[in-house]
């Protein structure tokens, strides 16, 4: 009898999967044949029998608007990074590379819809009408999320991986219970954002189970940016993530997450499914985290520069620009205008950030409860008196 061989786990990053091609030094996953694409990395419109009609209304003006969204969102993101480097923010969570996934899906939403983000969805926030300045508090440490969730249809950021998938499911169940589902125009839907790493969490699974059980009008929108901090996708799954949906009996689609048109179209379709009562739906947006995980992270410790270089060729903004210029004849003025607008946004963000006041210590004790707790109130009174004794305000 042979001694069994010691099991040496293969480096997951070097294990080529069936839908990988070898380009240059290492294999880059192209997303596979199931990838829905409407705009190639080279800026060419491609046909897709199933989803074309969901982007049929996107003419030159609409595409310009998407371009503008993405440029401004990226600029705000880069400014966030810079503000952190300058010590104005404690941390920044960059979305670089994921503009198309976020703007495409975000622009597919209607006012009556609700979005549950994780912590990287600054581009979706933008589409929900939340000014980038409103995001700064979390990262500066002056608040835990300042916007009006109900008014904007944008839930507070959720940091504990996976939690929001169940919260979104509950919300969508509520839309169902309130009979807001049925009409393709006015029907309501919910969208929930999470990452590739998050798919390993129990809460995401339970969200799938519950959403399926209650026919919840919920689009699960997974931004597969290939990495969960330093852990590559292959550590989380053997098969493409959109295929998870099969095991729950609802549809799963993989879309080119760097293609804003495809993201728009597929998300519109998915939301329509939900609005009309055929939810839930899973979308896997196949994209890439171009920057480090956060400003506290250093991605060069765990991934190769080549990989990033290859993904640069698939840039979500560049392909729209090329299409606007080459196929739609948009002139330089437009691009200059957007550029100027983005410069102004950056300045505004910077100035706003630097002027942000620190909250007073009473904030520690505020809104812990709806009916105030005497215990917390006593601690507040005691601390504020103590505090005042230092500042001479006693």
């Amino acid at each position, binding site marked *: 009898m042979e001694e069994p061989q010691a099991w040496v786990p293969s480096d997951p990053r070097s294990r080529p999967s069936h839908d990988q091609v070898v380009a240059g030094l290492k294999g880059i996953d192209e997303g596979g044949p199931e990838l829905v694409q409407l705009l190639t990395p080279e800026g060419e419109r491609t046909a897709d029998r199933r989803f074309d009609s969901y982007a049929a209304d996107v003419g030159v003006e609409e595409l310009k608007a998407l371009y503008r969204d993405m440029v401004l969102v990226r600029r705000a993101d880069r400014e966030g990074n810079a503000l952190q480097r300058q010590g104005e923010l404690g941390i920044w969570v960059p979305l670089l590379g994921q503009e198309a996934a976020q703007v495409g899906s975000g622009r597919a939403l209607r006012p009556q819809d609700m979005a*549950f983000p994780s912590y990287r969805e600054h581009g979706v926030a933008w589409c929900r009408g939340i000014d980038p300045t409103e995001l700064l508090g979390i990262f500066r440490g002056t*608040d*835990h*999320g*300042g916007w*009006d*969730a*109900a008014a904007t249809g944008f*839930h*507070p950021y*959720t940091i*504990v991986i996976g*939690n929001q*998938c*169940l*919260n*979104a*499911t*509950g*919300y*969508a*169940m*509520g*839309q169902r*219970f*309130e009979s807001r589902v049925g009409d393709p125009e006015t029907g309501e839907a919910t969208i929930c954002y999470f990452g590739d790493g998050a798919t390993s969490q*129990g*809460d995401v699974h*339970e*969200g799938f*189970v*519950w959403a399926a*059980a209650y026919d919840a009008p919920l689009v699960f929108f997974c931004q597969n940016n290939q990495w969960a901090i330093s852990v590559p996708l292959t550590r989380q799954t053997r098969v493409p993530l959109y295929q998870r949906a099969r095991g729950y009996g609802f549809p799963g689609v993989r879309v080119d997450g760097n293609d804003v048109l495809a993201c728009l179209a597929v998300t519109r379709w998915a939301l329509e499914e939900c609005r009309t009562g055929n939810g839930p739906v899973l979308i896997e947006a196949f994209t890439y985290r171009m920057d480090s995980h956060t400003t506290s992270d250093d991605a060069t410790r765990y991934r190769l520069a080549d990989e990033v270089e290859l993904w640069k060729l698939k840039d979500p903004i560049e392909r729209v620009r090329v299409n606007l210029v080459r196929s739609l004849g948009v002139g330089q003025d437009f691009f200059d205008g957007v550029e100027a607008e983005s410069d102004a946004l950056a300045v505004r963000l910077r100035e706003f950030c630097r002027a942000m006041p620190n909250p007073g210590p009473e904030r520690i004790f*505020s*809104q*812990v*409860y*709806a*009916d105030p*707790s*005497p*215990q*917390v109130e006593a601690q507040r009174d005691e601390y504020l008196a103590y505090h005042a004794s230092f500042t001479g305000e006693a």
Partner: protein
Amino acid sequence: MAVQTMAKALNDGLRAAMERDPKVLIMGEDVGRLGGVFRITDGLQKDFGEQRVLDTPLSESGIIGAAVGLAVRGFRPVCEIQFDGFVFPGYDQIVSQLAKLRYRSQGRVPMPVVVRIPFGGGIGAVEHHSESPESLFAHVAGLKVVACSNAADAHAMIQQAILSDDPVIFFEPKRRYWEKAEVGTDLAAAPPLHSARVVRPGSSLTIATYGPMVRTCLDAATAAVDDGHDIEVIDLRTLSPLDLGPVADSVRRTGRLVVVSEAPGESSVSSEVAARVQQECFFSLEAPVLRVTGFDTPYPPSRLEDDFLPDLDRVLDAVDRSMAW
């Protein structure tokens, strides 16, 4: 006024809350057709429909996590956790979302969710079915934690908890489900949810307790009369925030305090009561605050639960030790 078991009083209280507000939902494992393993939700699905009484998939994180989302949507979910030992898969959602969303959003996202948990031992059950995890919630800021001890309180407190805009972890002493009491229906006449209550006045020693141990302590107080001890028994009712006023008042009169709880004592609600009373009543105490609790062990096989659980004798033993200090 009617004489009811605690189980029925809770059932009536839930029914009243559901009638009062169409946004009140009940959700949990087996709460619908079966009426819950303790029948606390008996008949409610039949009368209110499957959309207001949800037999959920088997997942506690799902129950709490979906309830959080439903609350965001404007519902007032009442979750049932089947047994104390099964709340932990839902603990993350409780600690990270349910407890914190109001604070995170500075009041914009209220969380009017009640999580009902039958708790404690004494029913001869297998592992995980007899635990007292209340301290693991009392320590968590953003949650309110209460425990009822009798049918009348149960009836009022469950309704008050549902009316509250804060998340309330609602502990029900399962071994008292079938004990009866006079139950009033006038909610306005009930004491506030977050108030302790003197359930037996006395002058020689104070006992602070809650949940299933209230009955035990009342029995002990009765038995102690023979020994010449006039014991005041306080039902804490609210474990977070604690309402220590009545306890401190009492201790200032009696000079002695025994805290009684089924839960292991280590780093617990009973520690908190002792820690605060020794501070607030330092000069009044004639003996240290003593505690009678479950041991700092896992819950033992049920044939040993009579040894594990504080009983009349162990309470009286502590009374004697305190009186003799």
